[in-house]
């Protein structure tokens, strides 16, 4: 890829493709916005022209000669047009934006999934994911506001023309005001709004961190009598946030006030330069200029949001960046056996269907080892002191996607998705039949729970699998791993949170399932009952590795 690209160009290109599919809606929205703004400017101009004309005619005693029908009809038309056009604009601009962004979200997800896994996983974590959502929302706003630009230009052009007709100098003056408005707003944005926005964002993050920290240390605060000091400390953080918000809102209000100022100045300018001009025209032009500048408000707002969008695009570009494309995951079958662990001369060799318990104290890196097997973490021989090979190939030499075909992981944190129970199970493998799903749920001891729900497999779960208890979520993740049909099963504390009876049931069924399917097992568990699944083959990770080995775990442990 060529490095000399504007930041954000790749995402902008993706967005352009998606937006092009909705271009009809967007074009109509732009046309409607232009009609709406012209109606607003026209309504103001016509009313002024009509009134002044009527006044002139009455003063000249020629009231009956004044053509009042056409202008008064036009005025009424403009009122109706303004309403209708505005409605159409809003609806269609939202249509184009929502649909284009629905597509873009899928594009971004694909791009994210194509990054080398460790990077993709870093980008999918908590804060990064929220950031992603904010950035995408900012793009949506950008599209919704797109019609404001052409509409403001059209309205401005008409106002300039009218003022120019009344007095050429007035036309120039209104044009200068219009042209100066957006750069002035942008300058104020850069000087006032952006710094305040950054400050407010940082202050909010600091306050959140402070409150979360205090909640975590709540026992100490209560027992050691630190309540008052903590309240003071939090109040200080909150005050900093409020001060930043005040600066931000003031900057925003100052930019909006710019439009108010400009509108009055434009009307005054036309009037002051009008002597000698047609009175009706001058009156109409003054009101039209006023309305035209007020119509710039949308454009000014879009201009002030531009910075946010630009920064967002640049961040999103980081996701889409081609990077080093992973070696294409060919149809090549992964090596399946033997799975060999070597540690300080000791070797544990598992043939197909073999079983192993990884043991050791907390923090010894057991979970991380499972994640390395699953292709979710870099295998780190230096930290764990364990060299692993699969089918004679060192783990590090196997691309993560190939590893994923050899191992199915039921992680410690279940990591479910919002959707139905079937959606969650279907992640495991395409083309799963319902009977297979029930079978897997049975082994995981969850079939009765699912059957008890009226919707069965179609029962909906919330974000991250909300709606299931901790133990149920774990068993669903277990069933999902069983369905993947991989030669090796990786289980991380599979029965944590289960009552003893259920635990015994699950262990028993798992044992039979492993036997029948000839699937191998690598198990991590502190609890006694599941440990029998390993049939006595144990690899002990006794030493706590240095801190670096604990970094980069991608699932919450």
């Amino acid at each position: 890829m060529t490095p000399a690209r504007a930041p954000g160009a790749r995402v902008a290109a993706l967005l352009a493709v998606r937006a092009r599919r909705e271009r009809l809606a967007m074009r109509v929205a732009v046309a409607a916005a232009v009609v709406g703004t012209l109606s607003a400017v026209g309504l103001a101009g016509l009313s002024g022209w009509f009134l002044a004309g009527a006044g002139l005619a009455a003063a000249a005693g020629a009231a009956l000669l004044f053509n009042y029908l056409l202008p008064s009809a036009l005025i009424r038309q403009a009122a109706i047009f303004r309403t209708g056009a505005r409605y159409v604009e809003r609806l269609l601009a939202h249509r184009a934006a929502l649909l284009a962004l629905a597509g873009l979200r899928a594009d971004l997800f694909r791009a994210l999934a194509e990054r080398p896994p460790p990077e993709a996983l870093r980008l999918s974590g908590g804060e990064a994911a929220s950031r992603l959502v904010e950035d995408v929302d900012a793009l949506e706003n950008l599209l919704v506001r797109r019609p404001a630009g052409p509409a403001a230009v059209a309205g401005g052009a008409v106002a300039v023309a009218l003022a120019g007709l009344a007095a050429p100098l007035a036309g120039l003056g209104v044009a200068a005001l219009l042209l100066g408005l957006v750069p002035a707003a942008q300058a104020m944005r850069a000087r006032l709004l952006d710094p305040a926005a950054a400050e407010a964002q940082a202050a909010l993050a600091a306050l959140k961190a402070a409150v979360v920290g205090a909640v975590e240390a709540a026992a100490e605060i209560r027992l050691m009598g630190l309540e008052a000091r903590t309240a003071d400390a939090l109040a200080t953080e909150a005050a900093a946030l409020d001060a930043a918000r005040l600066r931000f809102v003031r900057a925003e209000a100052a930019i909006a006030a710019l439009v108010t100022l400009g509108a009055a100045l434009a009307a005054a300018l036309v009037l002051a330069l009008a002597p000698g001009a047609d009175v009706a025209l001058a009156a109409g032009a003054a009101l039209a200029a006023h309305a035209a500048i007020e119509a710039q408000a949308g454009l000014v707002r879009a201009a002030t949001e531009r910075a946010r969008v630009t920064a967002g695009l640049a961040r999103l570009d980081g996701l889409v960046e081609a990077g080093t494309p992973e070696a294409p995951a060919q149809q090549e079958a992964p090596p399946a056996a033997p799975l060999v662990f070597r540690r300080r001369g000791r070797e544990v060799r598992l043939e197909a269907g073999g079983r192993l318990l990884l043991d050791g104290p907390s923090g010894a890196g057991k979970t991380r080892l499972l994640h390395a097997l699953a292709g979710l973490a870099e295998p780190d021989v230096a930290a764990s002191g364990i060299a692993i090979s699969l089918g004679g190939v060192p783990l590090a030499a196997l691309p993560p996607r190939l590893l994923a075909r050899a191992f199915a992981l039921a992680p410690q944190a279940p990591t479910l998705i919002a959707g139905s129970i079937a959606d969650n199970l279907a992640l495991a493998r395409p083309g799963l039949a319902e009977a297979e799903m029930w079978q897997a749920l049975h082994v995981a001891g969850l079939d009765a729970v699912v059957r008890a729900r009226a919707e069965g497999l179609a029962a909906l779960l919330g974000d991250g699998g909300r709606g299931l208890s901790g133990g149920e979520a774990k068993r669903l993740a277990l069933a999902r791993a069983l369905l993947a049909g991989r030669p090796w099963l990786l289980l991380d504390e599979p029965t944590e949170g289960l009552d003893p009876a259920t635990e015994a049931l699950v262990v028993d069924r798992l044992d039979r399932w492993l036997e029948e399917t000839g699937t191998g097992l690598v198990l991590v568990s502190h609890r006694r009952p599941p440990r029998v699944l390993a049939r006595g083959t144990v690899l002990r990770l006794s030493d706590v590795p240095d801190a670096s080995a604990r970094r980069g775990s991608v699932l919450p442990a």
Partner: protein
Amino acid sequence: MTATTTLPWKPPRSLRQRMDVATLLFLGDSLAGVPFALGLAMAVHFLLQREWVGVLAGAVLVAVSGPLRAVLQWAAATAGVRAAAAAKAEARARLYPRLLATGWTAGRLAGEEAATAVADVEMLEGLAARYRPLRTAAVIAPLIVAAAVALASPVSALILLATLLPFGLGMALAGTAARAAAERQLAGAALLTGLFVDRVRALPMILHFDAAERVARQLESSTRTLAERTLATLRIAFVSGGVIEFFAALSVAMVAVYCGFQLLGILPFRVPEQLSLAEAFFALALAGEFYLPIRRLAAAYHDRQLGEAAEAAIAARLEAPALASPPPAPPGPFPGLLADGLEVEPAPGRRIGPVSLRVPAAGLVALTGPTGSGKSSLLLALAGLLPPAAGRLALGEAPWPEGGLLGRAAWAGQAVQLFPGTLLENIAAARPDASPAEVRAAAAAAGLGPLLAARGESLAIDARGSGLSGGERRRIGLARALLADRPILLLDEPTADLDPEAAAAVIARLKAEAGRRAVVVATHDPALVAVADAEVQLP
């Protein structure tokens, strides 16, 4: 603690006054439309008379109205945010103590919950700064504008007021449906982003199962469906905006046509007024102001939705039953404690125990067991922060006091609350009346001597403890517990994050402390368990 049924902030008097300032400034902005209209009318009048000085004077008046309104609008926004800051401060003052009270039970969830609560408080800003002042202004300002119009043309004022009737009807018809639709839209938008972020968060497992392409396709089709559904609700939601827009335009058009016909003398009916061109212009220029406050209010609708949702969420948090948190008992002696069949329930459905144990007035007791076996929860129960779910606790010969060991026990846990200030000040927070020498001694006893020697006694730390290792934070907590000089120490993993030498020093210190007071530790550390006088193993 009594459950409170009031909303988080029914504005107290001082707050209402601040919000009133914003309202008044918004009203002032509407009133500042008068010089604009007056200037315009003057200029047009004198244009007709060809009196250029008068035209210029009118133009100047029009120009001056610009900065006047700009300043008023800016001041209104400022006053609004100031009122909002007061509202937020008040909500925080009531919310944060409640959040802290959940801290020792809900664990990691409590942290996420707290972050959400902080964000919710911020959502009150739009409500207090914009929506509420604008709501009052939207009721009063049109009347002020109509009164000003009436000075020039009472009939025009009547026309404006008359449009309010069909407008109100239209809003009643469209508004209710639109409001419901707008709420559905907000929910739909949340679903849209929620689905995306949910899949992004599940990416590790999606990659693991090689399901990225399938999920992407499903994501696209379901976000499209959601978008279509959102659009259907927008069709209704935008109607109320359309109604406002329509009457805003219509009122201007009607005043324009009426005034024009009036000037021409061709009205098909008699009216009790005769307008001059200046009066007509004055009325026309102000007609546009009539619906402006209502349009501004409509623009703040989103603020209202978010703000009221946040208000409800905050109220729900305040109403949720809080753990009983009695005032600390007067610091008293610790005659030893006895727990018999003690069970605790740190979270619904998670039971720990039964455990029976005895802690003598002096000695080292170690609670051991695998991760998740409930050592920390048991420690919290002994401290009095978790009520026993079953079993019996006794303090020496006496029944267990309501506040447990509050006031008697010093605590050092996994998380340490740090304050901006020096390291020694942080330690002294546990006992503000301690002498500097005592504070230094506690720091040294907790193993902070080398750090102080290396970086100086004035070593400043910030609220996040930047630059401190996990072990150093723990030592600060331990130093506090030692300094507090209470008869029992409750310590959660006191040697975690420490290297073996440092851990050995801490263990020696704890063993020494156990000679003169009770020390209860929850630990995995075999070296610490080895020196304990008693070990209580949790399954």
